[in-house]
């Protein structure tokens, strides 16, 4: 063994840990698959929703209705923002898997021991993972939204719907989609670190982000029990997706930024708990 070729490398730092996590993330096929799938899902749903919008708008019944009552077309569900952002609710599941896997696959493979042997400051590893995931999620959601807009523009313009980028609410909903997915990936990283098992983490996240809101949605629409409504509006995804929604806030839901703050709060709590547990637990 030659001890000459390498100069003594300097100390471990955050920048280097970040670089290591970046290499780790992108040297796995699963990352390429999940990122690709997220973009495809966002664009696919936008395309589908645009097609439905055009069909509906062109149907004689609707046109007649709109002629009678001009408010219908303004208030309609088919505004361009809704079409472009519609994919988030499925994309969030893939993003959640990406976030959870970033840490659970280290535990399942034993890689985590090599990681912590190289970087004993475990919080630094968690922070680097978070940074890498946030950058990746911002990039993929911006690309997803841009592509969704590009492919749906021709379809929507045929029925006179277009994205108004000068509108504050539109911009908030578009930016909100990026923020929402970032919060989801952060929450997923926290849950993954706490649970350490891929299956358990993904089950928990799907239940939290997808199944619970569905169940409560049904409960809220069929009853008016107060505590059910309260729980419903504070569920992570129900609260968070308010920042993507446009139009007036229904009285049983939170306002957009308060809603997002609630989701972000869950993510912060999960990450802080993860950091505390990470320091104490054996690797």
């Amino acid at each position, binding site marked *: 063994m030659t001890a000459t070729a390498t100069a003594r490398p300097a100390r471990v730092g955050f920048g280097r840990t970040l670089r*290591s996590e970046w290499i780790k993330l992108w040297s796995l096929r699963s990352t390429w698959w999940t990122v690709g799938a997220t973009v495809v899902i966002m664009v696919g749903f936008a395309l589908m929703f645009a097609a439905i919008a055009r069909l509906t708008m062109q149907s004689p019944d609707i046109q007649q209705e709109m002629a009678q009552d001009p408010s219908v077309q303004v208030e309609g569900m088919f505004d361009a923002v809704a079409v472009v952002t519609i994919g988030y609710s499925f994309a969030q599941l893939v993003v959640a898997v990406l976030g959870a896997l970033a840490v659970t*696959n280290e535990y399942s*493979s*034993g890689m985590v021991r090599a*990681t912590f042997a190289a970087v004993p400051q475990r919080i630094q590893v968690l922070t680097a993972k978070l940074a890498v995931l946030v950058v990746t999620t911002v990039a993929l959601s911006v690309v997803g939204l841009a592509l969704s807009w590009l492919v749906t523009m021709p379809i929507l313009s045929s029925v006179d719907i277009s994205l108004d980028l000068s509108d504050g609410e539109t911009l908030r909903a578009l930016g909100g989609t990026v923020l929402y997915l970032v919060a989801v990936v952060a929450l997923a990283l926290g849950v993954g670190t706490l649970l350490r098992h891929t299956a358990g983490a993904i089950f928990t996240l799907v239940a939290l982000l997808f199944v619970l809101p569905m169940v409560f949605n049904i409960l809220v629409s069929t009853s008016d029990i107060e505590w059910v409504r309260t729980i419903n509006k504070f569920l992570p995804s129900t609260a968070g997706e308010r920042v993507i929604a446009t139009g007036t806030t229904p009285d049983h839901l939170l306002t957009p930024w308060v809603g997002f703050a609630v989701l972000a709060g869950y993510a912060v709590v999960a990450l802080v708990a993860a950091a505390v547990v990470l320091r104490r637990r054996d690797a």
Partner: protein
Amino acid sequence: MIEAHDLTKRYGSKTAVDGVSFTVRPGVVTGFLGPNGAGKSTTMRMIMGLDRPTAGSVTVNGHPYARLHAPLTEVGALLEARAVHPGRSAYQHLRALAATHGIPDSRVDEVVELTGLAPVARKRVGGFSLGMGQRLGIATALLGDPRTLILDEPVNGLDPEGVLWVRNLAKHLASEGRTVFLSSHLMSEVALTADHVIVIGRGRILADAPVSEFVDSASRRSVRVRTPGAATLREALERAGASVAVPRPDDEADALAQGPGRHGAPPRAEVLEVTGLDAPAIGELALTSGVVLHELTPVRSTLEDAYMELTADAVEYRTSPTEDQETAR
């Protein structure tokens, strides 16, 4: 240099490592020997700062592992199970770890070459044989050109050529003045590779000595005596200060296998195991006691025997559990 002081690790009511103190010195290969479940891996994980000791402390080159500014340049470790994501290539695995210390890709190429991984470095680790995985683990350990190496069962799964390679590598690294701490559950492996041995059983240090000294002290010399006058000889031997062990079942079988002689069945010969007297002394004693000897063989217990004897009470998992272990569950 690795120094452990009263290192203890408990999992609930179970004590995996029980107040262990030892020093692993640079310049020699130190073997860490013990049966499976004796606490070897737990001790090594505590050295690496992966597991938190319940009590006590351990330092590497004078510092707790977590305080090292560039741990990979101080300590390189091959950890028990494969610590590699199966979906990543060997090359990317090494690059990712190298990146944490700013170690250049040229060094990654170097360790890949050194460990003979070059032909498979770009392949995903999931398809590696046990031996290839072990080589990748060693490549990982060497990445930072560390002063201290911790190798947990490094020859596991290696072919004979690989075993020889690890042995020579460990000796070579030690000869460069590095600290090499190598665990094994095989006494013979440690005897061939290590200069110093620390034996652990049930979480306690059973021996901590140079290998040659350990072998001398642990391997008892005894003399096997086969005689029809066992009772008389035994008495005489014990009077002379020797200790006599009861015959073992397979020796009985030996005696029976001799069969009856030409002049009818001879008196039944019994086997005695004598320690404390050498063969000439026993022969003379037999003559003065008027006892016929059928066999007088000096026996030297093997290293493996010595180790088995030392760890006999410290084996965690037996093939056939004794009664009290059964009830203890």
